[in-house]
């Protein structure tokens, strides 16, 4: 009996008129928790009632505290008839259960009704008194912190990382219960919302218990999903990474977070970087860090290994594959071993074995050595093998016993085993950047899981390692706070290059292949690493993780998408499932080919944040792969794309081919410019290292004669881990030139579509990872948005190709609209672009995008670019940039405040076109200012970033009758906010809403309906965050957006599930007074 929940209803405002006669409302409030309900008095005849109620107290188990939401219902009192409900507010009180999170919830909440949307607001205060519970058999897990963020949260350090946690709960969907026929839509929706809220609570509690069992206190990278299985039920499942997190003292900035342990060799920053120290692991491209405070390079340990050391890892060891217990299982799970790898040559063989032995002990004992994290402390990732993914098609049947969700558990178990075995095949013992998803259509369900096979650093696996090794990593990886290229980096660059006695310098180590060079799991083209020249790297690398901070990247990155649409016959049951599973491997293959082509077209060699979604509809399958392409300096330059015709005698045809070839070559050249990809020429230091390498890689490959070779092979082989699975090999043979063969019209169109990808408008960049390599100097101005489109395919008999074209156009158009909408933020980058596709009905395609646009500072950007270039070009004869770029410029400019920047950028901007855009922008602003006789607080939007919104709005508002204005809450899908510092995590936001209408036309049609619903969801998220005392949501995502319509009946329904972490941030500039962070932190460390 360990908790007392207290709630107080203060007031309401903007209530709807419930009594037509008086144009007023007699409102009162019911406050319900569990089975206890309290009521306020009726506040008669007012749209802005002041209840000022007493404290309603609920004495409850902490188990209930975790599961149940506080339910507040606002009603209109009616003397003669039943009271009318105005709307509800559900408050998740979980954030109050952890000492470190929020202390109370207090603020204005939108009153939400599933039929009418937001109807006014209510001011509520909620507190919890928790008593200590020492019961070891407890069912609750109060105090376990949850984070959606997929890296170690910024004001924490990870003392221990325990590993993978998962859980799922199932229930009957109220929408499909018999009672639903007799109750109102409102009642049905509310039952559903409440049930899901309960289930999420329960799920979170259960996962929390597992974490406590493991000895942890937090879940990072928490990913919760709903499967609306229709008739067969409702599944809520979640995965995450259990950790033990230590809160960093508020004094230490997250940038400096790292040094909680004493580092004897920690010198003040200036020293460390000026001395050509032995820190060979010094990241060469410190400026290349995504942004100045990307992820705390937290120490990372795991559980101590068990006493008996297991035998050395053998990739061929068969993994026990559990065959599914369900007889409906008709799955054919295509396996993907994506990307190719390289190995670390002979001389590192023993080392590798050692690493394996060490890490294995820690990881092997776990059932699933999976990590949902996508961003890691530097040095943590030793090698990355490539993407591993598994899919399985299942037939849904009714969940008979909700308390025993065995079938679903078994399904996922099976998939995870498969992932694990794939990872092993790639010579890896762990999977990072792991995620799971489903796509359901009628009774068919595709389960998917994917991740990146990786080797983790044994140093991070040992207890106590943090005091000795690794410290150098952590220190050095911190870039100076001064954003863009300070001179520090210049000096660093030269020295860092020389001598590495260790196996893998951080800037390239993770690229080195983890598997054995002579026993490769799939054919791949290996070369010696272009940075250290010691070890083998693959020609391309695909991963699901974010770009490691220490990675050396040439130029900028960009969003790369592969889109695919396949028709499928309508079918039922097993036939349908079989048809789908037969299609899957081909889809994966096509998507992969597309990705590869597009990657090469952009002259890049690696993909990060790869996410492949395959969505099933009644008569089609949609595939969408998104990733961020980059040029990893450690990997060889990609070869060009060569096209070859089948009928060499036809002159016209030849002509056609050569035009096309020219277009491709032009595009590649253009892209190189656009993304600033000017890789250094091969150095000639160690000719031997390059003997195996064709010199073509940087020459114009495209001109070389066309080898008569198939563009890639699809072959089947029995993998060692399973006996009945087909294996797809997606690597593309030898790579001296990448050949596209045009043998039919399809192929021609493929190439056409390859080339028709709309170019980015100038001033824009895009990526689906946390940040863009090569861009720093983010301004605080950002805009998170969600855009949803539904297309109706009017033409019933579309070919696959027609469909593909339409689908591609769809996505391209959507992107174009985004660029146009956000043009006022130029120069800017769309980050974390997350597409979700679905085929909700026959002939309907739904595409939803959530992303954030972040402005950066052009002027300093260029300076930084040049510094980077200078650094990278250092060793090479080919200096792209003249050296006269004075160091002072780069030092002076970086910290210019955004407001000043627009001017300076206009004056200095070297690039002519940018300059004109700027002028354009200013002209526009001037125009607007002239047009409206408005007293703008600041003349342009850019210059009035929101962060200080609270104070700003206070100042600016003219005397308002209705109290203080609403405080600004920022939202971002990223784990950070540029130019700010997160000082506190207040708890997880996980909300589920249903909205329904029976007057679709009156609400502005489907668009009007969804527009207001999404706006309402945002508003409710913001309100909850503000009530927790926060001013931003990070790692925000919209996990589910299910939209159904019936225009004939004038009805529509939509379900949305969103999640994120509520935080408090402060502006970086507020901290500017605190000088050199490293020194200050060192001082702090000294105390330990």
């Amino acid at each position, binding site marked *: 009996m360990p908790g007392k929940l207290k709630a107080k209803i203060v007031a309401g405002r903007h209530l709807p008129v419930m009594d037509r006669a008086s144009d007023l409302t007699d409102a009162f409030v019911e406050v319900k928790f569990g089975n206890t309900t309290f009521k306020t008095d009726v506040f008669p005849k007012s749209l802005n009632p002041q209840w000022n109620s007493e404290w309603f107290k609920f004495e409850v188990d902490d188990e209930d505290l975790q599961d149940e939401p506080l339910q507040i219902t606002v009603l209109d009192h009616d003397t003669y008839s039943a009271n009318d409900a105005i709307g509800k507010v559900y408050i998740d009180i979980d954030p109050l259960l952890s000492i470190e999170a929020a202390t109370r919830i207090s603020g204005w909440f939108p009153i939400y009704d599933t039929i009418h949307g937001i109807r006014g607001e209510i001011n509520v205060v909620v507190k919890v008194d928790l008593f200590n519970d020492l019961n070891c058999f407890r069912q609750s897990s109060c105090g376990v912190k949850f984070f959606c963020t997929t890296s170690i949260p910024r004001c924490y350090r990870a003392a221990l990382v325990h590993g993978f946690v998962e859980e799922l709960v199932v229930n009957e969907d109220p929408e499909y219960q018999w009672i639903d026929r007799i109750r109102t839509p409102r009642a049905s929706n509310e039952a559903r919302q409440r049930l899901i809220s309960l289930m999420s609570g329960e799920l979170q509690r259960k996962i929390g218990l597992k974490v406590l069992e493991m000895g942890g206190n937090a879940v990072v990278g928490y990913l919760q999903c709903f499967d609306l299985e229709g008739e067969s039920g409702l599944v809520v499942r979640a995965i995450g990474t259990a950790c033990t997190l230590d809160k960093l003292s508020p004094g230490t900035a997250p940038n400096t977070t790292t040094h909680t342990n004493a580092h004897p060799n920690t010198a003040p920053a200036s020293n460390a970087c000026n001395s050509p120290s032995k820190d060979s692991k010094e990241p060469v491209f410190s400026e290349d860090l995504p942004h100045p405070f990307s992820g705390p390079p937290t120490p990372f340990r795991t559980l101590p290994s068990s006493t008996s050391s297991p035998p050395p890892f053998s990739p061929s060891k068969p993994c026990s594959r559990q065959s599914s217990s369900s007889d409906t299982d008709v799955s054919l799970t295509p396996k993907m071993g994506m990307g190719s790898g390289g190995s670390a040559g002979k001389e590192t063989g023993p080392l590798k074995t050692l690493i394996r032995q060490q890490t294995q002990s820690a990881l092997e004992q776990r059932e699933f050595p999976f990590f949902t994290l996508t961003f890691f402390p530097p040095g943590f990732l030793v090698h990355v093998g490539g993407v591993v993914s598994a899919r399985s098609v299942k037939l849904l049947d009714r969940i008979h016993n909700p308390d025993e969700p065995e079938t679903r558990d078994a399904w996922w178990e099976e998939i995870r085993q498969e992932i694990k075995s794939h990872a092993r095949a790639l010579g890896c013992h762990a999977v990072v950047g792991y995620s799971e998803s489903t796509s359901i259509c009628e009774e068919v369900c595709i389960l998917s899981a994917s991740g990146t096979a990786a080797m983790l650093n044994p140093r991070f696996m040992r207890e106590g390692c943090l005091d000795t090794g690794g410290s150098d990593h952590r220190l050095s990886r911190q870039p100076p706070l001064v954003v863009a290229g300070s001179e520090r980096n210049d000096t660093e660059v030269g020295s860092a290059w020389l001598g590495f006695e260790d196996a893998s310098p951080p800037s390239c180590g993770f690229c080195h292949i983890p598997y054995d060079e002579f026993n490769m799991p799939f054919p791949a083209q290996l070369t010696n690493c272009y940075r250290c020249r010691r070890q083998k790297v693959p020609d391309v690398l695909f991963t699901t993780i974010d770009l490691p901070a220490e990675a050396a990247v040439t130029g900028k990155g960009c969003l790369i998408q592969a889109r695919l649409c396949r028709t499928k016959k309508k079918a039922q049951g097993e036939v349908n499932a079989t048809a789908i599973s037969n299609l899957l491997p081909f889809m994966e293959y096509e998507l992969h080919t597309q990705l590869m082509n597009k990657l090469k077209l952009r002259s890049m060699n690696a993909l990060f944040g790869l996410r492949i979604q395959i969505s099933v509809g009644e008569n089609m399958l949609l595939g969408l792969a998104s990733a961020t392409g980059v040029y990893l300096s450690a990997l060889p330059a990609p070869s060009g794309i060569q096209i070859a015709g089948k009928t060499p005698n036809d002159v016209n045809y030849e002509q056609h081919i050569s035009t096309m070839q020219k277009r491709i070559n032009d595009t590649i050249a253009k892209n190189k410019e656009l993304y600033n990809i000017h890789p250094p020429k091969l150095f000639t230091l160690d000719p031997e290292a390059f003997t195996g390498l064709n010199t073509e890689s940087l020459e114009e490959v495209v001109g070389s004669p066309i080898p008569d070779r198939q563009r890639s092979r699809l072959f089947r082989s029995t993998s060692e881990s399973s006996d009945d699975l087909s294996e797809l090999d997606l690597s593309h043979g030898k790579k001296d030139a990448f050949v596209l063969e045009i043998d039919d019209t399809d192929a021609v169109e493929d190439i056409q579509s390859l080339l028709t990808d709309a170019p980015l408008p100038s001033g824009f960049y895009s990526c689906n990872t946390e940040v863009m390599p090569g861009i720093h100097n983010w301004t605080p101005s950002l805009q998170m948005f969600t855009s949803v489109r539904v297309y109706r395919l009017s033409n019933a008999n579309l070919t696959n190709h027609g469909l593909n074209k339409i689908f591609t156009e769809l996505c391209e158009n959507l992107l174009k609209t985004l660029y146009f909408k956000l043009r006022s933020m130029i120069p800017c980058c769309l980050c974390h672009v997350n597409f979700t596709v679905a085929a909700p009905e026959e002939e309907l395609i739904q595409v939803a995008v959530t992303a954030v646009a972040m402005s950066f500072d052009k002027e300093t950007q260029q300076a930084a670019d040049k510094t980077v270039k200078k650094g990278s070009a250092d060793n090479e004869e080919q200096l792209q940039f003249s050296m006269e770029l004075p160091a002072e410029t780069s030092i002076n400019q970086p910290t210019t405040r955004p407001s000043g920047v627009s001017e300076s950028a206009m004056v200095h901007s070297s690039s002519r076109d940018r300059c004109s855009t700027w002028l354009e922008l200013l002209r526009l602003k001037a125009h607007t200012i002239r047009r409206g006789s408005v007293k703008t*607080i600041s003349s342009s939007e850019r210059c009035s970033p929101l962060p200080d919104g609270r104070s700003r709005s206070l100042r600016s508002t003219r005397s308002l009758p209705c109290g203080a204005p609403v405080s600004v809450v920022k939202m971002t899908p990223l784990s950070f906010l540029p130019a700010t510092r997160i000082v506190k995590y207040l708890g997880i936001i996980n909300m589920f809403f249903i909205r329904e209408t029976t007057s679709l036309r009156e609400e502005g049609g489907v668009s009007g309906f969804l527009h207001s619903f999404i706006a309402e969801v945002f508003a409710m998220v913001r309100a909850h965050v503000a009530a927790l005392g926060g001013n931003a949501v990070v790692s925000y995502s919209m996990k589910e957006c299910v939209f159904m319509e019936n225009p004939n009946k004038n009805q529509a329904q939509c379900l949305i599930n969103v999640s994120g972490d509520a935080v408090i941030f402060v502006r970086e500039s507020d901290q500017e007074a605190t000088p050199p962070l490293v020194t200050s932190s060192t001082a702090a460390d000294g105390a330990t």
Partner: protein
Amino acid sequence: MSVELDVFVGNTTIMDEEVYQFWLDGYTVNDAVKVRMEGGVLEECETSAEVLYSDTMDQYRTFQMCERLLHSPAKLANQLLFQIPPHRQAMLIERYYAFDGLFVREVLGKKLSKGTKKDLDDVSAKTGITLKSCRRQFDNFKRVFKVVEELKGPLVENIRQHFLLSDKLARDYAAIVFFANNRFETGKKKLYYLTFQDFAFCAGLLISKWTVGAMDNMVEDMDVDLEKQFLQDLKDLKILITDKDLLDQHKSLVCTALRGKTNVFNEIEANFKNLSRGLINIAAKLTNTKDVRDFFIDLVEKFIEPCRSDKWTSGDILLFLTHYTNSAHMLDSFKHQVLWDRYMGVIKSCILKMYHE
């Protein structure tokens, strides 16, 4: 293939001021797209008509959703649905309540009733302003009128506080409310030449000098009505024209002062009695609601037109009215000095504003 649904929602609500203006001006989405395309935005932003349409549509929807809030601007600041930076909020409100000079001239002084609203299509046809825009403007007038009608205290300040408008716009609305309340006739042909700003200026003077609030701004509820007692007292000014001696004396004082200072001296001398009678009669009749309505037309007929036909300059008018006002103080038997100043101060400024050479 057709787009069935297309929405974009930003955490901070994105609003394009140009599109907002199109929306306010009552353009259809298609027309707005056309105009935007002509503006060269396609080339500038490397985009397509489709994108432009989608964007315009989306913005229109946003504005429609905001419109409800704009009806009581104070709500905009503390609603939760749209996150709009304060300076944008101010812009939205200010633009929403902005009106066309042409339009307001058509309805100025008319009763803000359903009947008037029904005639808006005529107004729209006449002014070339879209009906939609006319309706918005008309509804704005009506809304402001209804709210301030029941409020105490100074009119301009009330409008400013309740509708969060700029001072300038609040004053204009005060004028509109004042005209609507007193039903001043402004639509007669003779008054066509006057702009809204001319009237607004006069309204400002009347509000600040002739209403109850003008003397003691917290006493009564209204800035909207002219002070009854004052109007009653104005009858006393009649002595200036009924008393033959006083009239002659007044004339000679004025003429003496003006001799040699103006080119139209002869006309002044010849017309003095007529002009003076005109002005005083206006004052004397103001107790009649009907005559209050004709206030402006009377000023034009009785004073401005005669002067204009004699080709007075504004300077002449100023000179004449100044001396005309001041000379009255020198008349021993004229006892209503304060009243006279209160009356003539406004009349003088009004005439000067209304006199277009």
